[in-house]
């Protein structure tokens, strides 16, 4: 079993489980996965575009 095969298998297993490869390595090595805390984006642009569309529609 070559190192390339092991890496290929690692990536395939991670994808199959829907996991990040780094997270899987963290599990395999006993480290804790790192929590991603960057907030999910809001829908500000869409909401602004809707507000403008409402204003345009009201004028017709």
């Amino acid at each position, binding site marked *: 079993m070559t190192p390339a095969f092991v890496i290929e298998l690692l990536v395939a297993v991670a994808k199959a489980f829907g996991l990040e490869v780094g997270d899987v390595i963290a599990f395999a090595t006993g480290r804790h996965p790192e929590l991603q805390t960057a907030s999910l984006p809001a*829908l500000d642009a869409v909401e602004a575009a809707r507000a403008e*569309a409402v204003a345009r529609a009201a004028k017709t």
Partner: protein
Amino acid sequence: MPNIKIAAPKPSPIVGALLGALLLSGCTRPLDTAILAANAARDVGQVAHDLIESECLPAYRGANTPASLAAVDARCLVPMKAYRIYRAAWAVSVVAIQRAQLGLITPSEALAAAVEVGRKGAGLAASLTEVSK
């Protein structure tokens, strides 16, 4: 007929550790499982956000009449609401995990918050089928 013995291949220790960790991940370390779930949920949320924005932003920009606005609303309002709920649930799960890391709540409670994101994700996924029609 010659008796040929084929030795079973020895599994790599790395692969063994990897598969073992994956198989046990759901029951050994609830906090790690919650973190993995929250991270995956964040990725899902980002994809949902990008899909809603790519479909609804140009649609609203092109809506100039009450009828066209109503048509865009019919496609976009429900997914937008579902995304807001999902985003809030994800934020709650992150805070729950951080509280569990500080020992303020149990890891199982943090995992429950992550599971709740998954429930909200089902609603989000269902609503996204409308936006991409």
